[in-house]
């Protein structure tokens, strides 16, 4: 049982690495995407809408297989880890862009009007007035997405990234004598233990921000 736990735990750094890199890259890419989805230029808006819906419409596992096995330039192709990071970042960017866009839309129109009426120009009005409020509104959705993403990194096991579920599977295969369910129970437990603090942190920040609402 302890062996099973230690084996699964070896996968945790990979799960965290995938989550952190996909979240950070996704969030950075999502900002211009969210702005572009609100662009006044029709073709820009349509193109980005098409891309976002395409990325969200295809299951993550399909993206990972396409990236890992479908893309090759000469001898170069994605390593399993890189394919997983790129694929999860891509999907995160699309989802977070939608979350950010929703947050921006939820800021009352009077806020932009007040900023404009004061003579605050578009860029600072967005950066200092709209974006902080949009972020506040989006925060619970962002935290929910982050927890979901952490669990979705398990999909990388299918392209042989040595994260927790992959470790659980290989331990189960190598130790057929042991009750095979244990590594999976440990994996589940670790997912929960890591997720709970994120949920708690998000609720606390949200409560604090509500005060200044």
């Amino acid at each position, binding site marked *: 049982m302890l062996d099973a736990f230690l084996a699964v735990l070896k996968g945790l750094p990979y799960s965290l690495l995938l989550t952190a890199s996909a979240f950070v890259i996704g969030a950075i890419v999502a900002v211009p995407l969210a702005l572009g989805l609100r662009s006044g230029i029709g073709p820009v808006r349509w193109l980005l809408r098409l891309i976002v819906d395409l990325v969200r419409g295809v299951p993550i596992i399909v993206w990972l297989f396409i990236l890992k096995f479908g893309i090759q330039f000469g001898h170069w192709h994605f390593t399993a880890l890189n394919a997983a990071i790129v694929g999860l970042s891509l999907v995160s960017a699309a989802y977070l862009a939608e979350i950010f866009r929703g947050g921006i839309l939820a800021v*009352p129109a*009077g*806020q932009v*009007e*007040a*900023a*404009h*009426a*004061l*003579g*605050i*120009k*578009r860029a*600072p009005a967005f950066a*200092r*007035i709209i974006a*902080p*409020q949009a972020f*506040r509104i989006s925060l619970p959705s962002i935290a929910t997405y982050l927890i979901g993403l952490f669990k979705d990194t398990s999909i990388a096991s299918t392209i042989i990234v040595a994260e927790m579920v992959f470790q659980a599977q290989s331990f189960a295969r190598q130790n057929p004598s042991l009750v095979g369910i244990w590594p999976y129970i440990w994996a589940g437990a670790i997912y929960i233990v890591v997720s709970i603090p994120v949920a708690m942190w998000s609720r606390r920040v949200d409560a604090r921000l509500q*005060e*200044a*609402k």
Partner: protein
Amino acid sequence: MSLIADQRSVIGIELEHMTKTFGRLTVLDDVSLHVEPGSVTALIGPSGAGKSTFLRCINLLEKPDSGIIRVAGHTIEAGKNVRAADLATLRSEVGMVFQSFNLFPHLTVLENVAFPQRNVLGRSKAQARDRAMTLLERVGLAEKAHTYPSKCSGGQQQRIAIARALALDPKIMLFDEPTSALDPEVGLEVLAVMRELADEGMTMLVVTHEMEFAREVSDQLVVMADCHIIEQGDPKEIMKDPQHPRTRQFLRAVLER
């Protein structure tokens, strides 16, 4: 210390042949208005008459379809492109107060009044804070400086919004139903500040349903109905003896409540 930086504003508002449509709906149909420097004009009329749109056209929150706006030393011809820098300058010289206050909820009261000064006028942090505190004191809310707007009553929020607009030293103030979202008692605090501002010589254009304020404080009363100005002149005379049947009907409805 006065509410306005340079007393006795010498700038008025001149609006000529303003027309505004939303799709097929005409909201303003060839409306012209002159507001004397240092005077107060009250704009009344039934809802849907185009009062708010008219006001919002003056600082270009709405783009009029045609017409000429002369305000605070700027001449704007509708339909022509206005450079972003000119637009920002115009708007900083024309203060606006909204029905729903529109304070920035993520900034403290002090920051609400100080941030626009720093961003628009490039004032230093210390200068902006000094001016903000002076104005907050003047509207009786210095003790609220470090709280968030959500901790203030509606009347307090509206007085903060007035301080925020005044902090940019505007030459003209536009008020869009500033007391309509407030209960009558709280509305009086706001009207008191507006009255002081008028006494100090600010040029003001006020869309309102406060007949008492319109009668006592304003120099000119303008009645709008169905996209037009139907009557304008001395407030007391119009209220006593309205010429237009629509004005009579409106005043009867408002005064007999």
